[in-house]
């Protein structure tokens, strides 16, 4: 290695390695040096320590090459050469993009849920975006075949409207109706989309003696976003709906993010004529990664591992994210104080 090559190689070393080298040459005072002085010190002592310096550089370069060998798609990201840890950033962004189109094959858990509905109530608790709608649609199809009414309820009018459009597309508008607090289209259709409050009110009326064919032939009640059961204001309506749900109808509760689906399933089993089957997993169909973006535009991984840590106690921040966030906090603290 020529002196120039050596100098360039040193400039590319992470600070942590530079400091280690500096310390082995100049002793503890190196710990207080900045990058420029460190390089100066190392260069000055390089002749006497050439083996050690070169070994460090070579190991580092080998590591870099190994990381770079991992194929990185996604254009701009891989050509980035900012100081810090470009390799980690590359790993974070690796594989970004559109997957190969694949024919639709229902997941095992989706089939499991649909089939379990033949035998009893079902709670599906899987991550957001997994495909709970497929279960709802498939179960609706089966109930339709048996000439049974299906009610789909959701907490939000917006969601009811989206589902109405979706179900109209799948089953044909003549088979789908919608009832919300202020809207009523085709209210005698075999598939009814409604807000949970409306269903509860229908159940009140039926219990009060009013005859409602829709409830007599009710075969399936789908309760989407059923974690609303824990909503401080409206949760009670979900409970009432479940308690008053006619015994011949099957219940299908769909939800992401709840901590105690077992408890809910045990409750349903205790009050309903058929046992409740719980379909549950935590596997995200599209893996999720976390990044940290500093206000200056610098992106780094948020965690030390590229995949999401499995629990808060195992979540270790990426050193760069930690450093930048600490810096941010100090900066804003300072401006807050002076401003």
């Amino acid at each position, binding site marked *: 290695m020529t002196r120039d090559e050596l100098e360039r190689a040193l400039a590319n070393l992470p600070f942590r390695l530079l400091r280690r080298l500096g310390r082995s040459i100049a002793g503890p005072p190196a710990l207080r040096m900045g990058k420029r002085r460190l390089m100066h010190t190392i260069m000055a002592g390089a002749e006497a320590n050439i083996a050690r310096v070169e070994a460090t550089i070579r190991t580092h370069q080998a590591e870099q090459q190994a990381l770079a060998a991992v194929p990185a798609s996604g254009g*701009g990201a891989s050509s980035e050469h900012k100081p810090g840890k470009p390799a980690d950033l590359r790993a974070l962004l690796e594989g970004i993009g559109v997957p190969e189109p694949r024919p639709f094959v229902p997941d095992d858990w989706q089939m499991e849920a649909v089939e379990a509905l033949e035998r009893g109530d079902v709670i599906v608790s899987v991550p957001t975006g997994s495909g709970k709608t497929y279960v709802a649609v498939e179960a609706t199809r089966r109930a339709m075949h048996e000439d049974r009414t299906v009610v789909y309820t959701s907490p939000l009018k917006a969601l009811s409207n989206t589902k109405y459009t979706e179900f109209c597309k799948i089953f044909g508008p003549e088979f789908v109706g919608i009832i919300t607090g202020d809207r009523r289209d085709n209210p005698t259709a075999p598939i009814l989309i409604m807000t949970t409050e409306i269903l509860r009110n229908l159940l009140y009326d039926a219990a009060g003696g009013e005859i409602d064919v829709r409830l007599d032939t009710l075969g399936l009640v789908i309760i989407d976003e059923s974690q609303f059961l824990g909503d401080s204001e409206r949760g009670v309506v979900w409970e009432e709906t479940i308690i008053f749900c006619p015994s011949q109808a099957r219940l299908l509760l769909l939800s992401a993010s709840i901590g105690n689906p077992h408890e809910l399933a045990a409750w349903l089993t205790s009050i309903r004529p058929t046992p409740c089957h719980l379909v549950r997993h935590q596997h995200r169909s599209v893996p999720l990664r976390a990044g940290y*973006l500093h206000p200056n535009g610098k992106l780094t991984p948020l965690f030390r591992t590229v995949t999401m840590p499995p629990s808060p106690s195992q979540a270790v921040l990426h050193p760069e994210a930690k450093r930048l966030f600490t810096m941010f906090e100090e900066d804003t603290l300072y401006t807050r104080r002076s401003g």
Partner: protein
Amino acid sequence: MPPSIHPVHLVTVLRQKSLTPAIVFLTSRRSCDEALQAFEHAPDSLPPARQESITAVLDELTASYPSLQDHPLRKTVTTCGVAAHHAGHLPSWKIAIEELMRRGCLDAVFATTTLAAGVDFPARTVVLTQSGVRRDQDFTDLTIAEVAQISGRAGRRGKDSVGFAIVTPSPYMDLGVLIRGLTGRPEPVDSQFIIAYPMILNLLKAHPLDHIQSILAKSFAQYQMNAQAAHLEHRIEKLHAKLESYKPRECSDWLTQWSAYDQATRQTAMKLHARRHHPPEVRARLPYLTPGRVVAFPRFRGIVLRRYRSRGQRHEMVTVLRTGGVVAESPVADIMGVIDRTFDFAPAPAFPWAAPEALSWLTQQLEDLPKHLPFLTVPPAPDEGEGELVKSLGDLFPCPTCPCRPTCAKEFKAGNTVKQEWLHHTRTVQSLRTGLWHKFQERAEILQDLGYLDAAFKLTADGEWARLIRIDFSLLITELIRAQAFKDVTPATLAGLMACIAYENDRPDSFPRITGALASLVATARRMTEALAPYDDPPLLRADVGGLAERWVGDTTVTWAQLCRTTSMAEGDIYRLLSRTLEYLSQVHSLQATHPDLATVAAEALSRIRRGVLEELP
């Protein structure tokens, strides 16, 4: 460096790293709007082909939602490929943004966390800029379930091989909350069962009172309480076993006996402590320091006017009259000796503690006293302690002679702790098992008093129709109907009042003036809420929001744009106000059978509300 990343810069970085489309979650509607405004001056615009595709989608949607036609944000969305999405927008606009996002036309959407729940609105990346959320005036941390919902929007099945949750800091962000949210297990769902009046009426319509308890038992609330109770019962069993070793001895009830004793001791402890604080000779003097007593201090003599102890002080004090008529306070410990001389005088309840003439007489007497007077010999007080106390408890405490006494004294503390815990748990279990039912009975009795239920807890004639009102504040509405408050009401005024009752937002906004008719109806409603205050939480009853609904229903030539101009309220909020009003009105409309006139007015109001923007939507 600005505290948080500039929105234009943020989107540039996201585009560079192929992280688009992205949803950027911001704290408030305002920050979403400001972020979008920042793009109005951004130098970059989308390539023409992409702009055209956005325009095409918007045009297509305009066919079903005419309000999209002249939407002020249309231009920014089309040229920059970014949008805002929050509750201040009209539903049609939100639908348009959702559709654009679904078709991959947009690069970024700035949204509030309200978006997170339920809407089918996925992206490749979500950007988290905050760790808290505004909830009823408060700013609270996002829950794990909320962070999971937000980050769950990232990564579209079939369109992305990876999804990203990107954290970008802003002042006051707590990174710990986000880390917990991203990696933790969501909170359990707990029952929030409440017994509302419509529930009671509807249950009692269908079932006799003695079936109700078994229906309530089916609730998740009861299920969870039973689980808690079972857990406690297990504990109670253990405590019960422990109590075995404290079972009856010489007497059956020694634990109670000793706990009475313990309480008495604790009550006297304070006094005892104070008394012990003085040395025995001072304590011995205390009984002699009555009003009128002459006492000697090291340098002067005086007559005691009163003895007292000020709050929080351990020392006993005396107020003394000194020569020259001076009234002074001093601690009893300063008294050197008690002189064998007292004067009778009329004490007063306040300073100077003696009637004026008594005071001057005493002053005179004090001056006339001979120079040398003998001190009383006061024997030092014996040490007071448990012995005296036990005596003072008398028959209550028979233990001193009992052979068990030493063991009881030793074990009583531990035994009592166990017993108290046992009692506490037993009571908790009882209320867990029967609390719901008691609450139901309590509220049913209120309905009975108000006349909706008869003596047998069956629905009265009023109860029969009142059960059809199944919204918040149902009691207020049914009571207003019973009080004839809606006699001769116009559709506009009825809609106005329903809007006041339905609107739960206390965002400060400005509104058009309201008519006298509505004002007086709101005043009636307000008086009614005061009367109902013990039974039900009152609605906000903001008269000002009612004005909007009144205007919209009262004058059908008013256009949406005109209506919006009369208030500073956001379009989305006006829409929500009117659609909630619709809901409330349709409940009133359901009373056709018993209140045909009112139902007709409600029907008229309903049909007038449904026009323009309110008709275009599902």
